[in-house]
């Protein structure tokens, strides 16, 4: 183990164990359908997700949307189906309290 401290050290330690210290990768998986939705993990109650469509011919420009807990989303272009799975503490991702509806007015 080389001389390092803080986050840098944690990153190197995780690497030596074959793990990743940070959670930086975009979620990937098979095309989501109503029967078998694409499950997007989130530490909070909602997460911004981009749908790139299917593979090859079925690919489309990325369409971004808010995916919220308990509200499955169907892509308007390719009908891919998404659900949110909260794996963290939940709550709003912006840390400004729970006034989701008020946010849209400002």
């Amino acid at each position, binding site marked *: *183990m080389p*001389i390092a401290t803080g986050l840098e*050290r944690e*990153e190197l330690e995780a690497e030596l164990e074959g793990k990743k*210290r*940070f959670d*930086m990768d975009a979620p990937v998986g098979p095309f989501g359908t109503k029967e078998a939705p694409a499950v997007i993990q989130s530490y909070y109650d909602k997460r911004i997700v981009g749908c790139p469509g299917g593979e090859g011919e079925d690919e489309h420009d990325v369409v971004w949307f808010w995916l919220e807990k308990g509200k499955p989303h169907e892509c308007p272009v390719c009908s891919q189906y998404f659900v949110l799975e909260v794996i963290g503490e939940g709550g709003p991702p912006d840390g400004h309290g729970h006034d989701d509806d008020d946010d849209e007015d400002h």
Partner: protein
Amino acid sequence: MSLACQIEGKFPFFTTLGGGGLKGGLHTTGAKWFMIESQRHSYHLVDPSPWPISGSLGALATTVGGVMYMHSFQGGATLLSLGLIFILYTMLVWWRDVLRESTLEGHHTKAVQLGPRYGSILFIVSEVMFLFAFFWASSHSSLAPTVEIGGIWPPKGIGVLDPWEIPFLNTPILPSSGAAVTWAHHAILAKKEKRAVLALVATVSLALVSTGFQGMEYYQAPSNISDSIYGSTFFLATGFHGFHVIIGTLFLIICGIRQYLGHLTKEHHVGFEAAAWYWHFVDVVRLFPFVSIYWWGGI
């Protein structure tokens, strides 16, 4: 984490002063570990810092003071000196903070290291363009000499240096220094810490020899910067190159000190890499004035 604590115990001076601000407690108390363990992205969100504005004020005082000084305004020299002192102070404390954040606080993850790498490369590209302008000016004036300078190059009545004396002697010294910095790089990658320090001492020694020769050459030069377009282009191009050699030498000295202190590892030595890139830029650029200004333009 145990080693991290050892490092902090070893240099308490750095941790208590580092970071700064009211929330500086983050760096010295247990809260730091809570914060870091909860961070899921690998970026470094920097603390507010006074150095951008202090550097800007220093630059403002330097330019205004410089114009005032060159036009013999009262107080021009004072304002210019204050501005330069302000800039130098800002450089010192800003880089000190970056070293604390990277080496002593561990904020420079792999993703963070990409920033200074791209920044260094873009900076060197801009330096290449800067020096290119001076070689352009020299070529512009020498390829079709005007009637005012006698229609010849070097201009009529201007004494020039013999390129095969000190200029020729000085030209291989910088590439040799570049070879020594590559030796230092290989030593770092092979985890030979002491050898890397030695290689950097060799690199810096060759750099100092080169600057010494350049000083000697200027001292003996038969013309000065006021002697026609020849003197202007000659001293602007070689002078700015020499100034860059001095900057690169300081950069390498800092790397040597950090190597001696054990800051640079096989996995993480961005500062050294930036210094080495800069040094190769300086040593390669030396070949252009030698060929086009000393040799082609001096015979």
